[in-house]
């Protein structure tokens, strides 16, 4: 019942904050958002799951209650955690309070609604990472879009309407495609399943339960479903060429929203890819290994090249997310323990590091009111602590060892270089690895021109150090990144335990 409590507390907090006066909504929201974080730490400490939730492993904190019936199949409230979902739950509950803190300075209107929506989003994100019934999961999945839409569309920058609509329509259309793909799969399973429970469906597919449906062969249905779901999730991740909504959304979104967008929302896409495409239909994935690895590599290199061309600090970080997500896709497609595990680890690591980068850029922006590379120089002189952490975060992004990003990327590279499931694995890996050079190129260049050199700012007013509540979350995030980089096994071990059945699911590794 702890999981339910976690989600319920987040929903209730959202409601309470929504009804509270603007003046103290921020502080109230921060205090309330600590509850789910403490709860998730409790979940972590008592975690006793093993194996993968979808392939018959022991699910921790499981609840399954019949709810209603759709199309002859039962829908249930079915939640639980395994080694893949727990780290993401912890990541979510950890990032939300920090994101709320980072909102105190920039958000100066309709605060109660803003913080209420942030908490509402958290509740739904927790739902996405814990739900094990397709319908339940889909409700949460779609419901995440609502607060996101408003958070960008109301509190965003000058082109917020455009960005919000683009984000909403694009990802929603993709969801529809994914929904159709998944439904065709469940109906092709016919009588071999009686519910929308994901473990049951996964098991039925693995046991060859797919039948001919409207004269279409099982193999073809599986492949079509795979492609539909892959495209659907690819938008969310995002994978090139479905990424163009992301920079627009990031540039318009206020800092705390960017933190959650990059930190958690993108991981919905990779998480869903792992759960649906790679766990349920491993052989289809494996058959498409070369094209998927190719778009992973393209995402890495192309995303990094785009970041190199940007002049807006936030756009730089946004495009580099595209690049980082490419690594995740590479890790997933190679079907090795370190590859799939590393991909999952990278989700957490990137969540922390991109969160830190957006937050730090936001703190600088609070002071300068510009994010353009040419508009400022020598910021290190005026905001030494913020810039110090920003530099540390940037090195984390570049994959500096003993920080979380290196661990994630290195696990992926080690897992993919010799992977039997991917032809030409060494070539794909080596190409993707070149991303570590380009990322250093654009981040170092951006830092050199904005943070160092003689101080200069297009507008002329006094700039001092940022307030404590702006800097504190940066420091906390940096600490978490280093802890995870020095001791990755605190998550990586449970992640690999849950990843192993996925790896064994593909017949190449049989």
């Amino acid at each position: 019942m702890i999981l339910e409590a976690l989600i319920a507390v987040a929903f209730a907090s959202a409601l309470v904050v929504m009804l509270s006066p603007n003046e103290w909504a921020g502080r109230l929201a921060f205090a309330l958002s600590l509850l789910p974080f403490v709860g998730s730490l409790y979940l972590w400490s008592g975690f006793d799951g093993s194996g993968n939730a979808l392939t018959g492993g022991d699910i921790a904190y499981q609840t399954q209650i019949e709810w209603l019936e759709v199309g002859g199949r039962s829908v249930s409230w079915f939640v639980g955690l395994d080694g893949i979902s727990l780290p993401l739950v912890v990541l979510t509950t950890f990032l939300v309070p920090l994101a709320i803190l980072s909102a105190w300075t920039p958000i100066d209107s309709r605060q109660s609604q803003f913080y209420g929506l942030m908490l509402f989003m958290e509740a739904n994100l927790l739902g996405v990472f814990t739900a094990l019934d397709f319908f339940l999961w889909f409700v949460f999945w779609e419901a995440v879009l609502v607060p996101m839409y408003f958070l960008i569309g109301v509190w965003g920058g000058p082109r917020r309407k455009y960005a919000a609509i683009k984000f909403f329509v694009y990802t929603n259309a993709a969801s529809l495609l994914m929904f159709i793909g998944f439904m065709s799969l469940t109906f092709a399973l016919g009588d071999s399943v009686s519910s929308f429970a994901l473990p049951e469906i996964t098991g039925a597919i693995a046991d060859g339960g797919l039948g001919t449906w409207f004269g279409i062969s099982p193999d073809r249905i599986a492949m079509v479903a795979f492609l539909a779901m892959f495209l659907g999730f690819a938008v969310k991740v995002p994978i090139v060429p479905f990424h163009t909504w992301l920079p627009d959304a990031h540039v318009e979104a206020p800092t705390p929203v960017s933190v959650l967008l990059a930190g958690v929302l993108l991981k919905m896409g990779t998480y869903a890819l792992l759960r649906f495409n790679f766990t349920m239909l491993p052989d289809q994935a494996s058959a498409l290994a070369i094209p998927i690895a190719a778009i992973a590599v393209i995402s890495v290199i192309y995303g990094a090249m785009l970041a190199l061309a940007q002049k807006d600090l936030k756009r730089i970080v946004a495009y580099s997310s595209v690049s980082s997500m490419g690594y995740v896709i590479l890790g997933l497609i190679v079907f090795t323990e370190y590859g799939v595990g590393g991909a999952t680890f990278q989700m957490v690591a990137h969540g922390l590091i991109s969160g830190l980068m957006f937050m730090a850029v936001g703190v600088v922006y609070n002071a300068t009111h510009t994010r353009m590379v040419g508009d400022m120089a020598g910021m290190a002189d005026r905001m030494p602590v913020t810039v110090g952490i920003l530099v540390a975060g940037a090195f984390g992004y570049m994959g500096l060892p003993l920080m979380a990003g290196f661990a994630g990327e290195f696990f992926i590279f080690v897992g993919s270089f010799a992977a039997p499931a991917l032809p030409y694995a060494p070539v794909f890996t080596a190409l993707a690895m070149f991303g570590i050079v380009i990322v250093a190129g654009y981040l170092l260049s951006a830092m050199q021109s904005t943070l160092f050199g003689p101080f200069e700012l297009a507008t002329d007013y006094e700039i001092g150090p940022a307030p404590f509540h702006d800097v504190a979350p940066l420091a906390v995030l940096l600490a978490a990144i280093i802890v995870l980089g020095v001791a990755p096994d605190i998550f990586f071990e449970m992640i690999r335990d849950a990843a192993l059945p996925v790896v064994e699911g593909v017949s190449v590794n049989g």
Partner: protein
Amino acid sequence: MIDVFSYVPAIVLLPFFSFLIALGAGKHLPKGGAFGGITATAGSFLLSLWVLATVAGGDAANRTLYTWASAGGIGPTDVELSFGILVDPLSALMLVIVTLVALLVHVFSLGYMNDEGETGLPRYYAGLGLFTASMLGFVVADNLLMAFMFFELVGLCSYLLIGFHFREPGPPSAAKKAFLVTRFGDYFFLIGVVAVIGTFGTAQFAGPESFPALADAALNGSGSVAWTPGGLDLMTWFTVVGLLVLGGVVGKSAQFPLHTWLPDAMEGPTPVSALIHAATMVAAGVYLVARMYGFYALTPTTLAVIAFIGGFTALFAATMGLVKDELKQVLAYSTISQYGYMMLALGAGGYVAAVFHLTTHAFFKALLFLGAGAVIIAMHHNEDMWDMGGLKSKMPVTYYTFLAGSLALAGIFPFAGFWSKDEILYEALVHAPGEPLLFGGYLMGLLAVPVTAFYTFRMVFLTFHGEPRSDTARDPEPVRWNVKGPLTVLGTLAVVTGFINMVPVQKVLGLEGIDLLHLWLDNHWGGIEGLSSHHYGDIGPYSSEYIVGGEVATVLVGAAVSLGLALTGLLVAWRLYNVPSPTEHTAKLGGIKDVLYNNYYLDELQVWLAYRTEDVAGGADTFDQGIIDGVVNGVSSVSLIGGDRVRQLQNGVVSQYAALLTLGLVALIVVLGVTGGWFL
């Protein structure tokens, strides 16, 4: 019996704590945290001496201490990634060198930074501490992954320290270049690490299950490897892997063509230059090759490439040193050149010679940089040698120690550099017959000898001899004990370090036991099986041939030739520059001077490459905005014909949006129900 090896982590951690203290509390500490750094490095130095003594007593350690990522599958095999320590004669020696130089640099910094009224001292001492700690972690690493990780941290620290004066435009740019160019090399290194782990399932340096041992066994048929990429035979694949790792070495040890960052790195404070060039970052590359020499020795092609790159870099960098006007620039190019010699030695099978030169160079180059620092203090931070002159009488301690370092650098008997450089050339010579790449490397190394002597003494004469050529040179600022002390220690070492390995004397006179370093690295007093110079000689491809008479004759002729060449260079410099008012003789070189002065325009080439990359990025951006996003927006405008109405739906009013969502869900369920046969 106290187990000294359990204190090895403390050697690494002490400077790390000084980093934390300086960073956290440096503002409130006297001297900006300098004393913490001095105490920490002194502690590390003493512990290292203890370790050295213990190793001399026959002990060694190869221990895994911490599991970074526990065992899991990577496809062909399972791996466990861990940290540990490998203490053998090589790493024990290196520990002493690094901690000693770091300690002296810390002390010197009191004079160079504190006394000169620099700001940001806590940041400076934090950087020094982290730099030292990272290098020490690299030195004791027991596996290639750990080595890579600390190698990268060394890169970070160089970035932080080269860019120390971040308020000026130059240093941040130099820092970026240093990190980026070495990162380019590290890219290949990282592929190499991943390839080693994929191929062998381990990255350990030592022991029967280490990757050099497994590679050896696989090549001679008594073992096998976990994986090779399709179709490649073992020798080819090992050569590829060796060359990949070499990428990192070429970057960090500033070998051609990735040497361009190093002269720019002179933007950093001078003590940092001493640390980077003598004992840490640049040394890291060569040390890595020595550390995994059991792997490199297996692949003749890799060795030949290493030798050729080394020989070429030695000559190439020396020519650029001929025409520089700034004191530190000359030293920068000499560093590149000297590490070229070490690479030549490693490629030529001269493992001991390389470590020998690494050792002597660490002392005399640290000495030269600190001496240059003293001159820079005296000259009020003017580094142009044409403004100096006549400093000899005004700063005798600096002069005589600098002179000792210069004699060592030039390879003049009996200073330290003579012995080590001579042994390198000897090793290259006797192994060169039948190896064209190696022979080429040898010739270039030999040619670089007179060039080195010439630029070294051009520097000495211009700086210290003749008449003062500026007001500051007439009245230089005095330096204190904290400058003279380290100079004296290093000056002594530059004279005597050569005596630890008097191989020519041993060979000519037949005196056994005076080639201490040879015995030391051959596990004479103990060490780890498989990590000895004998073992490397056995598995290596080379056999010795004496083209002039026997061994003794070759030793004598080789030494005479290299000493003769060095003296020639020195005498030419004497003739041209040891005059009251020297002129710029290099100007007579005309166009050649411009080419040399501009470093063969390689920096321009790299800048050009960087700009072209940015052009490609710009093109990608245009493509992305125009085509990909254009299609997205195009699709949406087509589907949003009558967009006004739709926009009304999406105008931010919650209730309307909720209605839309509900409608959509209902529609979905209806579709679902129909297709699922719900209504039938």
